[in-house]
């Protein structure tokens, strides 16, 4: 197990260059791309003095490399600057208000997508070349091609507008919010045993996370199917049979082996999930990071926009680290 620790330490160190590259990328996009970000965000109608003041506030009139190092230094110290509107709160505080909503949505969407994907993919593989297999493969391509806002609205139309059994907007019914501990409503309601809040937050979560879950499940269906078919033809599966191991147990071993490449996919899927969440949040008026980013783009709040994108970058780096650690925990070949 010592080697597992060593692996995790090395992998954690590798996060540093990734983070710096991502931060540089964000800096490059926001400040060096042709066009003045402030001017294009503010529009043409603003008087030059105001424009100058905004540039000053965003620190955009210093030499570019000074800006770059200030930017890196500040972010690595957790300082995302202050919002340029509404009482100039620290950007990080504003993000922390909105991020839990996104986290809750993405976690549920993620779990659903993996469950649906593993289920459909395994059926397809175990019933290979049957009609069931063919329909699972069609499912995977259609799910992959679904446009999130449209699919979300179709679900809203069916369950919210016609059947009227599920809400179509918001995180929770007004007035029943649980006491704030983690700001993950589901978790907070469980921790405080507040069942009204729990049921309300769950029914609000249902459609948005189902939307995300189904759209993202397609990639898993396909990967699980192909991996499982691959694994089932491996010698060690035949060897298990030759030792009289029961089919059910062999299926579990096969799924475990087939799951390894799926873990790698999870990292990438999480990034897609975050992007999908921007659209899902907009569709379901979900007060998360995605709607925060879009709002602030509209309000021309440059610091908040930069902060939000930087935050996404850091989160992505963290997720890829976590995925690699999980990988090492499951696959012994990585850690020795």
């Amino acid at each position, binding site marked *: 197990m010592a080697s597992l620790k060593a692996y995790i330490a090395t992998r954690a160190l590798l996060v540093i260059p990734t983070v710096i590259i991502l931060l540089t990328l964000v800096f490059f996009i926001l400040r060096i791309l042709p066009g003045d970000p402030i001017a294009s965000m503010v529009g043409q109608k603003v008087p030059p003095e105001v424009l100058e003041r905004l540039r000053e506030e965003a620190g955009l009139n210093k030499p570019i490399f000074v800006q770059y190092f200030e930017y890196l230094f500040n972010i690595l110290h957790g300082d995302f600057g202050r919002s340029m509107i509404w009482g100039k709160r620290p950007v990080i505080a504003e993000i922390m208000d909105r991020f839990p909503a996104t986290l809750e949505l993405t976690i549920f969407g993620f779990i659903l997508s993996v469950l649906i994907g593993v289920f459909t993919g395994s059926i397809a593989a175990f019933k290979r070349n049957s009609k069931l297999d063919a329909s699972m493969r069609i499912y995977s391509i259609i799910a992959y091609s679904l446009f999130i806002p449209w699919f979300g609205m*179709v679900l809203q139309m069916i369950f919210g507008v016609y059947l009227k059994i599920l809400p179509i907007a918001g995180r929770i019914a007004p007035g029943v919010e649980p006491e704030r501990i983690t700001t993950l409503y589901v978790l907070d309601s469980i921790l405080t045993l507040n069942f009204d809040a729990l049921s309300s937050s769950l029914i609000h979560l249902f459609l948005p996370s189902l939307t995300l879950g189904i759209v993202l499940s397609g990639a898993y269906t396909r990967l699980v199917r192909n991996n499982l078919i691959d694994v089932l033809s491996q010698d060690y599966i035949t060897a298990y049979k030759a030792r009289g191991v029961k089919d059910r147990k062999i299926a579990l071993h096969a799924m475990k082996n087939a799951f390894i490449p799926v873990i790698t996919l999870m990292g990438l899927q999480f990034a897609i999930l975050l992007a999908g969440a921007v659209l899902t949040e907009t569709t379901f008026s979900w007060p998360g990071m995605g709607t925060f980013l879009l709002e602030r783009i509209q309000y021309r709040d440059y610091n908040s926009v930069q902060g939000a994108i930087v935050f996404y970058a850091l989160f992505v780096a963290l997720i890829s680290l976590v995925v690699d650690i999980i990988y090492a925990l499951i696959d012994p070949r990585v850690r020795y």
Partner: protein
Amino acid sequence: MKGIGDTMEVKNLATRIFRPIIPEAEGRNMVIAGLIIVIVILLMAILADLIAPYNPTKLAGRPLSPPSLENPMGTDNLGRDILSRVIHGSRIVLVVVFSAAIVSMSIGVPIGLISGYFGGKLDRAISMIMDSMYAFPSLILAIAIAAVLGPSVVNAVVAISVVYVPTYFRMVRGQTLSLKSRLFVEAARAAGAGNTRIMSRYIFPNLVTTAIVVFSLSIADAILTEAGLSFLGFIVTAPTPDWGFDLSSGRPYLPSGYWWMITFPGFMVMLLALGFALIGEGLSEVYAPGRER
């Protein structure tokens, strides 16, 4: 010098690319279904002015009237014919997505080829940057770029091109790495072929089939990104018809039950993405038979 090896490689290439037309090739039905969808939508975009029953930006009936004989897909909140908007709405997405694909390919493919072929420190640096970009949520990257550049069709092309450069880079680099140690490349090198010649005559032709698959799949993905940007208001402004944008215009009317405003434009996004996804998936089976059986 034109050796036997050259012609053989090229001939293999031709048979490989055109394998989909062999009747028993697996995945052929998927390719055909995808092609039909894509071709119909392409024709729709080209012939929009001829086939659309109304001007997509002018009043064509009572606002918010449901589908009828006059307006087969109903009208929107401003009384415009949704069918006509759906037909015209195919234009921007196709233009944006194809232009972006061409731009990102012409950047990603050569960099990937050179990076993978020469290897070394430069390759590692470029790969690291590309991998970081690839790991970043693509729509958010595109939103950031579009927000800085301002909403416009050209800026959307820029934003989407940047997002898909790493996809092409990674594919080409990976293929180049595995191809450059293959026997026919070694043989060409032994016969005195230079680097440029090896890359252009031996490596590039052999990654064409993979490139075609990645191209179709990334177009499918780019369609969804374009529609997302448009939905969020980063590409067109009223009254220009575009599927993503029209979907967002229909959103406020959803709770009142005006289903036709959202159903059709969103469905078209899915259909177009599905078309390219079918082509890509089908081709990947055709080119790598056995893998998917």
